[in-house]
């Protein structure tokens, strides 16, 4: 069975500093990995995905994520955080294109302090 872990409930970072939101996963086959962001009282919005190819993927709003197969990780990063990045971030994994549904991590709340 597939699973996702986000080891930090909360991440605090000062504006202008780099940020990292961690995600590790478990699947039996090839992982399809996604990051979503949720602003207060809204649905989830797609940020970026890894399907195949380069391990570093770039997404919306200056975010990027690095796929590390040996560590089964897919950490979300941004070189310089903005106060407007404060939100709830979800990592999700699926076992290939026709695997079962996506499994979501519990979410990490990011607070960027001015």
């Amino acid at each position, binding site marked *: 069975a597939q699973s996702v872990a986000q080891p930090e409930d909360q991440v605090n970072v000062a504006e202008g500093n780099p940020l990292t939101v961690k995600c590790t996963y478990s699947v039996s086959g090839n992982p399809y990995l996604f990051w979503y962001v949720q602003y207060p009282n809204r*649905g*989830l919005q*797609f940020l970026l*995905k890894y399907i195949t190819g380069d391990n570093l993927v770039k997404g919306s709003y200056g975010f990027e994520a690095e796929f590390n197969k040996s560590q089964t990780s897919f950490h979300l990063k941004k070189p310089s955080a903005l106060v407007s990045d404060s939100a709830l971030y*979800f990592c*999700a994994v699926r076992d290939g*294109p*026709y695997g079962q*549904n996506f499994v979501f991590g*519990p979410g990490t709340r990011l607070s960027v302090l001015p």
Partner: protein
Amino acid sequence: DVKVTQSSRYLVKRTGEKVFLECVQDMDHENMFWYRQDPGLGLRLIYFSYDVKMKEKGDIPEGYSVSREKKERFSLILESASTNQTSMYLCASSLWGVYGYTFGSGTRLTVV
């Protein structure tokens, strides 16, 4: 712009009422999903559907049912609402393959 539309942003219902949450997508997606989101528990899958008139139970189907009579519409039904069903409900849709989910804005349901 592609959309998943949930009919209500906020709902307040009484215990024992039958509640309908509607979700419509305009992207011709085969797959549709209903999740509930609770603090500390993340997103939990209630039901999903891969085709018209088809439904599958997710991780927490008890107390819920669904209907998919048309490809674009997926309804979640709370047969007899209870206070422990107070939650944020999220609808999503997707294509098969390398695509992720497109989410609606959510319905915050309070059962009193």
